């Protein structure tokens, strides 16, 4: 037997009470773990993007299109090396809930700009460029949907109607699979020809959702952005040009202040757990007043009693929290297979934060009872006067 055995024996002496506390802590940390993973994904969106890539959107917001004629004018701006453009298609496969991140793009320039992030094999790229009704998809996405190269795939749009059929469905041929070049890249999307899109939609022809450009060097980014926006000032479609990272961050923030939501949810969960566990620990130690008095009588010093009680609350927090973070990591892995959000994982900083929260929970809830135990007078504890 050692001090840890005593801590363990004390912790599980009231099995139901301890189990309930463990369950409460487990769920609080499960919420934290999953939301921390989501936050990490969001952080990742905000931090993704090359330093010398800019995005030009309609100044009103990025859901408003730009005239396609802008693209050539942007190409002519000094400091711009390459320009491509894309339209959000609003795609889904078979059922609306099976949402696909789908863009109508100018293939040559789009693949060129993102070549450092993801790429096709040369044969697949040639096939994609040659066929107007071709599409390419992220390898994992294709695997998830059971697609193979050469398959005819009907994709639906929740925005556009196909002029040729009067329906919101387009037929594509899968000709290649996008593989990440950078480790953090996650090409979990579908690309197809903007030309095919442009000639078959019933509205919004000759527009681009946004222009994406690569500058000759990141040092000219600000000047290029200023020139582009100045060029289209006072036109019917004024532009806003920013770095790709800033655009991604703004895009993410359109979905709400995720950080604040996560903070509120996690904060509420932890506050509740703090009250429950703290109160229960105080009661549990109070019930043991006499036993603490006996241990002190036997010669256990105050500091050791303090450590035993504090150890109990720390162990409780770790036993509840660690499996929860483990399950959260597994759940995030499963969710990552379903949604295209790279970085949806319990990253080391958030894992460390989780451990820190566990220690804080253990310390805060254990400190008062441990201090009371430390201060406990033996004669009072034993009721001997």
């Amino acid at each position, binding site marked *: *037997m*050692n*001090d840890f*055995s*005593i801590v363990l*024996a*004390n912790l*599980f*002496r009231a099995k139901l009470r301890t189990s309930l506390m463990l369950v409460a802590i487990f769920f609080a940390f499960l919420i934290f773990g999953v939301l921390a993973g989501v936050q990490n994904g969001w952080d990742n969106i905000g931090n993704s993007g090359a330093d010398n890539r800019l995005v030009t959107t309609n100044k009103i917001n990025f859901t408003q299109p730009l005239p396609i004629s802008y693209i050539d004018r942007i190409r002519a701006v000094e400091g711009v090396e390459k320009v491509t453009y894309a339209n959000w298609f609003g795609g889904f496969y078979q059922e609306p809930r099976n949402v696909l991140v789908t863009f109508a793009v100018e293939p040559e320039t789009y693949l060129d700009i993102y070549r450092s992030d993801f790429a096709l094999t040369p044969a697949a790229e040639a096939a994609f460029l040659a066929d107007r009704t071709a599409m390419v998809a992220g390898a994992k996405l294709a695997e998830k949907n059971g697609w193979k190269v050469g398959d005819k795939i009907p994709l639906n749009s929740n925005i556009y109607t196909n002029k040729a059929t009067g329906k919101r469905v387009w037929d594509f041929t899968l000709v290649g699979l996008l593989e990440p070049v950078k480790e953090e890249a996650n090409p979990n999307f579908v690309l197809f020809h903007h030309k095919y899109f442009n000639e078959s939609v019933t509205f919004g022809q000759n527009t681009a959702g946004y222009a994406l450009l690569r500058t000759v060097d990141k040092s000219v980014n600000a000047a290029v952005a200023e020139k582009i926006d100045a060029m289209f000032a006072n036109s019917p479609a004024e532009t806003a040009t920013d770095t790709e990272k800033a655009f991604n961050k703004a895009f993410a923030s359109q979905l709400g202040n995720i950080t604040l939501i996560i903070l509120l949810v996690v904060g509420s969960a932890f506050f509740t757990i703090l009250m429950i566990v703290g109160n229960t620990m105080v009661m549990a130690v109070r019930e043991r007043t*006499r*036993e603490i008095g*006996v*241990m*002190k*009588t*036997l*010669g*256990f*010093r*105050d500091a050791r009693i303090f450590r035993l009680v504090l150890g109990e609350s720390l162990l409780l927090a770790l036993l509840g929290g660690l499996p929860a973070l483990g399950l959260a990591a597994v759940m995030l892995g499963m969710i990552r297979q379903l949604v295209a959000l790279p970085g949806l994982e319990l990253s080391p900083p958030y894992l460390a934060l989780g451990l820190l929260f566990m220690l804080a929970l253990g310390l805060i809830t254990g400190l008062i009872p441990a201090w009371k135990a430390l201060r406990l007078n*033996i*004669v009072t504890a*034993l009721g*001997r*006067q």
Partner: protein
Amino acid sequence: MGALIDIRRASKRFVKGRETITIFDKLDLVINEGDFVAIMGPSGSGKTTLLNLLGGIDRATEGEISFGAARLDQLTEGQLSGWRAANVGFIFQFYNLMPMLNAARNVELPLLLTRLGKGDRARRVQAALEIVGLGDRAKHFPREMSGGQQQRVAIARAIVADPKMLLCDEPTGDLDRKTADEILSMLQLLNREMGKTIIMVTHDPEAARYASRVLHLDKGRFIEQGAMA
């Protein structure tokens, strides 16, 4: 044998509201090594308070309390803890075992305060349980034992670290006569065979018969009656 405990002019007073209550005043007492002393007296006479002072779990308001060469009244709380662990075994009326630990682990508790290794601790625990006749109940929890058995475990816990002195506070107060006699015989054996100095507070004249010396504490003064057995 020489004096193990020497109390000189010890007083104990409590302040309760505006009133100061004197439990005893300028008390003198010498207990020799190897004595089996029973302290009797009416409720409120200060028997338990005296036992607390002897065990170093309470302090005298004034006076000197010596244990061998050590002056208990001059030790810090931390030093007193160490002194208790090394020199005193406590036996309480209601056993005061840890309910979440089995008999062996309850007995092992004082050994956690020593430098003994796991193997040595296990051997000592088993030996202590054998002495009290519970060698086969090591894995039993307090709730699975009778009052008499629990008190035996408490005695094993009190002797396992081989202290010089055992302090017993009404050790048979919660037991029937037959079991009480068994426990008292065991204490007597520990005193005679193992040389333990035993100081026992009791209301029970039958229990006091087992002691070699009986002291009556009344109104803060001792009246010695000598051996009753």
